[in-house]
């Protein structure tokens, strides 16, 4: 059973465009949603996160939009740069067990 779904699997945008990565989840008790960024050959690293009490979180060019009612969130990357080319994972915190469950990831390519 897949608790976290991400779409699209892969995305290509031109430099300067806005990339939109989507995530949905099933369990309404989840309350913490981090996004991790992974470059080839490296481990994932925390990029930005949001709690369910908020509907938006912004950090520079990266913004999370959160819709609690629909159990959906999205990561917007504005003014995309070639250096943003990476795989992005949405995750949810299972509070009972202090563990993160990850989605399958979206591979983003930004063309110059």
């Amino acid at each position, binding site marked *: 059973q897949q608790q976290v779904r991400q779409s699209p699997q892969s995305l290509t945008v031109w430099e300067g465009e806005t990339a939109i990565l989507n995530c949905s989840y099933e369990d309404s008790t989840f309350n*913490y949603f981090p996004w991790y960024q992974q470059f080839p050959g490296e*481990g994932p690293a925390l990029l930005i996160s949001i709690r369910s009490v908020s509907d938006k979180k912004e950090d520079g060019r990266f913004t999370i939009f959160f819709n609690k009612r629909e159990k959906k969130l999205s990561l917007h990357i504005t003014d995309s740069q070639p250096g943003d080319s990476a795989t992005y994972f949405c995750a949810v915190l299972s509070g009972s*067990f202090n563990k*993160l469950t*990850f989605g399958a990831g979206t591979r983003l390519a930004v063309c110059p």
Partner: protein
Amino acid sequence: EAAVTQSPRNKVAVTGGKVTLSCNQTNNHNNMYWYRQDTGHGLRLIHYSYGAGSTEKGDIPDGYKASRPSQENFSLILELATPSQTSVYFCASGDVGGSAETLYFGSGTRLTVL
């Protein structure tokens, strides 16, 4: 900066052999985790630990054991390796659920079982 070190970086094993993947963290985090990463599945949790001496089953524990002999070290053990366990394995540390809520990942171990 939090530091998580995995060894080896690459490993080739034979079917039926025993494999041990090692992880060391210098962050003094209570929690440590082992994930495997496969295309189409993302990161899936195998085992985790709340501290020295404790291990807990994650979402896909079958065929794996874990050992947490100290705060710093967390090992993943494949007693009888199978080709289906060919994957990239990541160790992470972090007091998720506490005040920090960030996982710090190592660089991964690429395991190939022939």
